[in-house]
């Protein structure tokens, strides 16, 4: 129980049907692991009256039905967990390879990123495709992964004016974050490439390819390979 004492959990009211528990400050892999492990444990044996379990960077939101449970009961339920034990139960998390065609019409902002970093576009691609990125959370739009682990050289501010439509599959950078737009949506991230994969397929048995806690690696592909993979995706 030692860990819990070191960093007290903070409870916050999110209206009359939501409870947020905060596990720490800022964006930190250890804090995020704790969020996910508790989320996984709660999901395994959800208490009566809980209808949503939503892990994010450093906090977990429980949405509950007040006529079926009491917030005090949920606090007690969550606080029984010792995260040191839970970490093993939450995994194992998988790594998902995401093919990306960088630059050209798929990545209109790659030059901006290269210029900001003082690198060639080839070097930007090499560095962006090098790490395994941790999925801290999924949100904003269906399947949008917020990834940690971007090479510091590639940090680039958001666009001054967001685009009305960012095409489906676009891979972007916003400051120290990188992510993928699973559906076409407005957005202000610097777009450097696009994946042919369908990241959100509501009618597929599993609509998503990954969840928070999984890892993503980007695999650079040529426009020809992109077209071939895209055709395959569209057929399935």
């Amino acid at each position, binding site marked *: 129980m030692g860990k819990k004492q070191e960093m007290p959990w903070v409870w916050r*009211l*999110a209206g009359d049907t*939501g409870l947020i528990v905060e596990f720490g400050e800022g964006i930190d892999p250890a804090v995020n692991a704790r969020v996910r492990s508790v989320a996984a444990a709660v999901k395994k044996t959800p208490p009566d009256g809980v209808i*949503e379990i939503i892990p*994010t960077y450093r906090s977990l939101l429980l949405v509950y039905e007040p006529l079926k449970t009491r*917030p005090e009961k949920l606090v007690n339920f969550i606080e029984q967990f010792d995260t040191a034990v839970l970490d093993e139960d939450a995994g194992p998390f998988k790594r998902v390879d995401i093919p990306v065609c960088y630059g050209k019409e798929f990545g209109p902002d790659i030059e901006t990123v290269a210029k900001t970093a003082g690198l060639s576009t080839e070097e930007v691609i090499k560095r962006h495709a090098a790490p395994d990125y941790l999925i801290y959370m999924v949100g904003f739009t269906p399947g949008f992964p917020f990834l940690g682990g971007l090479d510091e050289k590639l940090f680039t501010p958001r666009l001054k004016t967001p685009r009305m439509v960012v095409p489906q599959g676009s891979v972007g950078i916003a400051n120290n974050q990188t992510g993928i737009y699973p559906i076409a949506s407005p957005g202000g991230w610097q777009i450097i490439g696009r994946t042919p994969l369908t990241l959100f397929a509501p009618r597929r048995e599993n609509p998503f390819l990954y969840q*928070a806690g999984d890892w993503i690696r980007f695999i650079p592909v040529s426009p020809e390979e992109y077209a071939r993979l895209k055709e395959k995706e569209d057929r399935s």
Partner: protein
Amino acid sequence: MTAVKVISPGGYTTIQDRGRFGFQNMGIPVSGVLDAFAFTLANLLVGNPDNTPVMELTVMGPSLEIKKEMDIALTGAKMGLRVNDSPVEQWTSIRVRPGDLVTIGQVQAGCRAYLAFGGGIRVPEIMGSFSTYVGGKIGGFKGRPLQKEDVLETGDFPLLTRVRAIPESFIPAYPSEAVIRAIPGPQAEYFDTGLKTLFQSEYSVTVKADRMGYRLQGNPISIKQGMPKSIVSEPSMPGSIQIPADEQPIILLVEQTVGGYAKIATVISSDLPLVAQTTPGDTLWFECVDLKTAHALILDEKNRLHAVKTRLEAL
């Protein structure tokens, strides 16, 4: 079987049920009806089980050509309902027959109305719900608002043996000025004078008011000296009142999952319908209540709905 053909779709008409739960962790907002009270009564009126999908109408209603004999009912905002050009009451069951033309006009009080069909509108269930999530192009009718020429089906369902009507005392007035009760929010400590400002000023609804959220205009709410202007992104709830950089509050609604602005308060569940029934130019005041009060009101509403149900079914 085929039930209605859309002659004109109205302002913004979507198919909704209570919402899509269990996927917010994947970025899927709950969607669903904004006025759960009016929605529940619409289904009760035609004898549907609770949570049967209905049409949510916004500001201007649709015109529909009826293709089969069935019971329908319109609750929520007052919109001027006509069947074959004769005015008909809302909050009551109506028998319609093939060839009838149902037209619903411009809103006169409130903002959103609910049109229920005996047997329910038949659309595919996506991830546990029939609700339309327009941003994600899923649910409801082809993942979008209704359009001219759309043809919808309803389930086979027995006709009512007698007319059902909601007692007058249960019908909300939908005034253009509303007092909205709210609980101090998850980042209430980011504000000092801001809380006072929120609970002591009037705010008007701007034109930026939709199912994602309501932007308000009024006295600016500033964040306490020394507090960060944004927070680490965390989930929002329908009713979360967030304060962005321009210091004007936004009430987040059902098509939103995460956000990075501090949230000063949360509208209580029982008053979300009140918010959803206001239109641009209307005035809102906020009243601070505690969690206990909010929960008592949820129980009250459940009992009220139960009382109406008992009465309707006993008639």
